[in-house]
């Protein structure tokens, strides 16, 4: 019997382990059920509709091109995605150099590919692709010997992502790896013998990776020792050796540049043996075939650069303050976010800051404005005092040609174009001051081709501006269009509409609003990129190379426009642009965005009035003021609490839990101001209100009193993904496929920088519309994309998720994608509003800047998309329905609780009506304040555990104003859904029910079986012990 005691004891322990593991498994699965469902293609909750009243599937219907016999045709869908991916790459790849007609190659040319990135799967989370495969698909014949040589080597090759981030990686050193000629020879000593057969051209693929959560580290310190690169974005010794190998063995050498962070391409541009350079970005699943088409002349390049490419990636003023700066009195910041996620949570981003002392001079605006001032005799522009410490910066005179390799917007074609401005008219509609710029475009070459019409502007830099600290870029993109294919020799006329607010300047110190200057000369210009357009303005001013220009411009491509209005006082018109499109007064709203708001005169912002004297220094070792510490600690908006409540009378004014016969579905297509909303919102219980406001990530909370069904309605888009993820559980739509598609990936589109480089708004709209259709098929009405932040520096690792350094290019592309998706009822949620200018300490880094900079650069991209002025009609105010806030602070105040940003500007001035979600679990500790500031919800990854500390209604119920704000938040969220394709799937009888998924059934069975066995073993053990005791007695 003794032995049996041991047996049952062991069995009891073993079964207890199994039982506990099964219970644990159950808890983990349930707490992560949204992710589990998405991963396994199951549905934990189903939307059930008791009876069809005829309103189902009528809100938005998919386009016919996706359907066969009324149902989704997956093959058609794939082809639509593929064709669009190819077209985006054809129009968005940028031909930067093409000497001696290196390109195009003949069709089906036999080429030799060099570079590990030609064969390695690239693109990561934004969608994998292999350049070689795409080129083969396009018909190019690839050197098979070299493919075989590279094949075993690329397994060891790491296309390292930028890794300079918070916590333990301050000493990150990037390895600009490349497989060397010696490596190739070791693999196959006679590999060069294969060149003779594949000698139509050598194609060398170079590039840099990008990724979320980390940046490149600037300077020598950020590069692996011994690789020969001066910066992470400069060529390494191995990369140069591969280029030289190609140059030494081929008469035609083509460089393809992969990535988004602008590399230092000066050496390649200067290398006479390199015949052609083409930027291809991250082409996504299908785009490389488009690149191949370009190389063979099956398509004609028409893209222009999304960012300026500097010779020295460190030379812009923004690079002086980028990265890791901790407040000297950081120990006084006591705020802790209880989230356990690393790059958020207790990340020391709470203690960090970055001074964006470059002001409005981001990207090309800096280089071009300084060039303009050099030509115009501004002595301070010529004085080079800004050594970057890495390059030989011994020269004392600033010279544009030594600074810039390729300007913003620049791109070549296989044909040539002549562009002239033929007229400008001014449309003075109230609050919507528009200029219509007419441009004639003549194809002066021998091949048909498309081209972009980039309209730039220049505002005069006057004495008033100098006195009031108003900065003006000598050139800025105002809008753009893309022609159709123009046959050789033919001319087309294009009219580009310009919102004159983009030409006006934000005068935060003087008028406190946008101004234009009466009687002053403004210029419009077109050209092949910003530099060409600026040269055309200089030509219109009578300047030539004799004045220091690097090339004579064309005065016919520029147009002088003297601003003449009756509303100006003392030469400054501070009225015409002081009202937003919806009539709201525009005034200084962004309190404490500038360090100088806390501590006057502490920071010197770059001013063209004195380039050399104001060129930013690095602001390290800054000490927070008392008020700034308060803001960093999250004390921004007062909230009444249990210990300090509002009066009962005040709280009683907030209507909740009222009876109503209305259901959420009754509000289908309701206007934002529909009188019924108040009745709907007042029907919610306080518990429903709290949960509905806070739980809004991958899963949305139910409102049982209104039959708002719980579910997972949002899809995150780190890049440009395409998918059909039918996780909402409704499969009886007219267009549903027989078997639900589950998680059906359609790959990825070329990344945003490529879309931006196409300068084709219609293409971006088409992208949005395709996603909108997918949204209907996949029952995901909410898409968390695109990224509308700007590329402040080349070193931001996350620039792959954003379009450009230019806010107008970013804004227009975002707007078009939004409208395209919105036409199919998809809620596009642009991110990250705003100021996600670096990944280092992104979880809360304080970004300090002037309000002019904030409005004219970072926020303008969002403004264009939100106002969607182009699409508004008298009957309907069309605009983006969603936005995701950023992790960053503006100044010392978190964006999530920045009332000036969210309520006053976004909702007030821009008229945003929709759903604002935080980025992943950001600022949970500030939730009541955030609701007061206008935030609409939080992105949760898990269903239960992290919500628990925050869902207590006592956190909210003692502040009447807060409760009203939360009702407004719920209003915005419901309005958003009510006007989306979400309404396809609900009517007044729709509600959510739990579903027994296979994994749920499995763990329940496991728990029952293991519990029975545990109890049985335990029973036997007890019996044995009793028997033993009796026997011993």
């Amino acid at each position, binding site marked *: 019997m*003794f*032995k049996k*005691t*041991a*047996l049952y*004891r*062991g*069995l*009891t*322990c*073993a079964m*207890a*382990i199994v039982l*506990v*593991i099964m*219970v*644990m498994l159950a*808890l*983990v699965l349930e*707490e*992560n059920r949204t*992710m589990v469902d998405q*991963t396994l293609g199951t549905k934990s909750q189903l939307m059930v509709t008791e009876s069809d009243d005829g309103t189902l599937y009528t809100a938005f219907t998919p386009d016919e091109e996706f359907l066969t016999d009324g149902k989704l045709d997956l093959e058609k869908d794939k082809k639509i995605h593929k064709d669009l991916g190819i077209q985006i790459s054809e129009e968005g790849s940028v031909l930067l150099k093409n000497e001696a007609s290196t390109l195009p190659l003949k069709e089906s040319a036999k080429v030799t590919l060099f570079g590990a990135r030609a064969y390695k799967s690239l693109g*990561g*989370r934004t969608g994998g692709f292999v350049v070689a495969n795409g080129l083969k698909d396009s018909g190019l014949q690839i050197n098979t010997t070299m493919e075989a040589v590279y094949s075993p080597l690329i397994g060891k090759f790491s296309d390292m*992502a930028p*890794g300079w*981030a*918070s*916590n*333990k*990686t301050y000493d990150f050193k990037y390895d600009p790896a490349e497989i060397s000629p010696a490596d190739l020879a070791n693999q196959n000593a006679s590999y060069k013998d294969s060149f003779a057969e594949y000698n139509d051209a050598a194609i060398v693929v170079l590039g840099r990776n990008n*990724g*979320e*959560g*980390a940046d490149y580290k600037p300077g020598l310190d950020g590069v692996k020792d011994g690789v020969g690169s001066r910066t992470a974005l400069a060529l390494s010794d191995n990369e140069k050796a591969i280029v030289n190998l190609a140059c030494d063995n081929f008469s035609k050498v083509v460089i393809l540049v992969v990535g988004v962070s602008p590399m230092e391409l000066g050496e390649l541009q200067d290398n006479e043996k390199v015949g052609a350079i083409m930027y291809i970005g991250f082409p996504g699943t299908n785009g490389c075939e488009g690149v191949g088409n370009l190389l063979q002349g099956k398509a004609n390049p028409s893209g222009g650069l999304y960012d300026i490419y500097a010779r020295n990636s460190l030379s812009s003023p923004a690079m002086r303050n980028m990265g890791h700066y901790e407040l000297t009195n950081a120990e006084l910041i006591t705020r802790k976010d*209880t*989230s*356990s*996620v*690393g*790059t*958020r*949570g*207790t*990340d*020391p981003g709470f203690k960090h800051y970055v001074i964006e002392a470059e002001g409005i001079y981001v990207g090309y605006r800096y280089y071009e404005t300084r060039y303009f001032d050099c030509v115009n005799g501004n002595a301070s522009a010529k004085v080079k005092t800004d050594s970057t410490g890495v390059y030989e910066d011994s020269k004392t005179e600033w010279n544009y040609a030594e600074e810039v390799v390729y300007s913003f917007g620049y791109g070549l074609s296989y044909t040539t174009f002549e562009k002239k401005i033929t007229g400008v008219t001014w449309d003075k509609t109230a609050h919507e001051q528009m200029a219509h710029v007419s441009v004639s475009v003549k194809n002066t070459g021998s091949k048909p081709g498309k081209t972009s019409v980039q309209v730039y502007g220049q505002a005069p830099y006057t004495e008033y501006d100098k006195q009031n600290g108003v900065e003006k870029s000598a050139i800025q993109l105002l809008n753009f269009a893309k022609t159709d294919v123009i046959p050789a020799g033919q001319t087309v006329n294009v009219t580009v509409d310009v919102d004159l607010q983009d030409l006006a300047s934000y005068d935060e110190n003087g008028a406190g609003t946008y101004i234009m200057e009466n009687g002053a000369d403004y210029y419009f210009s077109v050209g092949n990129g910003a530099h060409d357009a600026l040269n055309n303005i200089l030509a219109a001013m009578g300047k030539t190379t004799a004045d220091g220009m690097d090339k004579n411009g064309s005065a016919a491509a520029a147009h002088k426009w003297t601003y003449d209005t009756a509303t100006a006082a003392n030469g400054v018109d501070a009225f015409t642009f002081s009202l937003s499109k919806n009539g709201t007064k525009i005034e200084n709203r962004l309190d404490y965005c500038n360090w100088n708001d806390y501590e006057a005169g502490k920071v010197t912002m770059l001013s063209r009035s004195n380039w050399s004297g104001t060129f930013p220094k690095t602001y390290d070792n800054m000490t927070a003021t008392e008020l700034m510490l308060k803001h960093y600690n999250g004390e921004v908006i007062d909230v009444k609490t249990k210990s300090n409540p509002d009066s009962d009378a005040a709280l009683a004014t907030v209507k909740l839990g009222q009876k109503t016969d209305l259901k959420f579905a009754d509000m289908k297509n309701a206007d934002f101001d529909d009188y019924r909303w108040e009745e709907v919102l007042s029907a919610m219980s306080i518990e429903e209100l709290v949960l509905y406001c806070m739980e809004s990530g991958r899963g949305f909370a139910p409102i049982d009193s209104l039959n708002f069904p719980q579910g997972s309605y949002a899809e995150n888009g*780190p890049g440009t993904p395409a998918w059909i993820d039918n996780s909402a559980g409704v499969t009886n739509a007219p267009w549903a496929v027989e078997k639900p598609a589950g998680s059906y990936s359609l790959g990825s589109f070329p990344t945003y920088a490529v879309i931006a480089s196409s300068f084709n708004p219609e293409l971006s709209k088409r992208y949005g519309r395709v996603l909108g259709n997918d949204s209907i098929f996949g029952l995901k009405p909410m898409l968390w994309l695109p990224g509308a932040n700007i590329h402040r520096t080349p070193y931001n690792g996350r620039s792959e998720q954003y379009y450009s350094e230019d806010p107008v290019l970013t804004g227009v592309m975002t707007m078009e994608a939004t409208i395209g998706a919105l036409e199919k009822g998809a809620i596009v949620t642009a991110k990250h509003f705003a100021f996600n200018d670096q990944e280092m300490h992104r*979880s809360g880094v304080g970004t300090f800047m002037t309000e002019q900079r904030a409005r004219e650069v970072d926020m303008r991209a969002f403004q264009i998309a939100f106002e969607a002025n182009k699409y508004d009609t008298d009957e309907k105010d069309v605009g983006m329905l969603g936005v995701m806030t950023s992790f960053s602070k503006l100044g010392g105040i978190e964006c999530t609780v920045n009332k000036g940003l969210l309520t006053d500007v976004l909702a007030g001035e821009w008229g945003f009506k929709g759903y604002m979600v935080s980025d*992943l679990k950001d600022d949970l500790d500030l939730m009541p304040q955030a609701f007061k500031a206008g935030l609409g919800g939080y992105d949760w*990854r*898990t269903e239960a*555990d*992290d919500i628990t500390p925050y869902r207590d209604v006592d956190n909210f119920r003692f502040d009447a104003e807060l409760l009203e704000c939360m009702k407004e938040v719920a209003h915005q969220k419901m309005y958003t859904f009510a006007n989306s394709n979400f309404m396809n799937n609900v009517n007044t009888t729709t509600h959510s029910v739990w579903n027994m998924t296979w994994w749920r059934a499995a763990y329940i069975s496991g728990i029952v079986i293991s519990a029975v066995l545990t109890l049985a073993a335990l029973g036997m*053990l007890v019996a044995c*012990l009793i028997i033993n*005791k009796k026997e011993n007695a």
Partner: protein
Amino acid sequence: MFDFLKKVSPAAYVFAAGSVISLIAMIIAAVSCSGEGFGMKQLPLVIVLSVAAVILGVAIVFVSGKFGDGILSTVLVVAMTLVTVFCVYAMIMGKSDVFGTVLFSDLEKGYAPAERACNLGIASIIVYLIAAVVTAAGGFFKLAKADK
């Protein structure tokens, strides 16, 4: 002491090993939570349970040596098993977020501190599981040498 050890069955050493393994798992768990931003609110619970497992392991050795293989030692064995397996539970719950962001999304894939927290968390869970299995296995043996 020597006489005491002579009375202890070989199974006692299995429990002692279980205690040591739990201790190792606890150290790994603590290290996995040491990165700034990767703390775990369940860590104190894990430490308490681990210490309890160690104490229970020692108690099993002591009780079985002194009182033989009886009800008390059996209860201690079951308790040690449960305590150890609850450490696994606490670790999984505490680390679920970082597992999600590293393993099931690209959010922090490639981010060294997150991957370290994730990998060490997994290691800790595995070691705790080994401790639980070792403890359960010890239950199959006699806890005291039969009196001669």
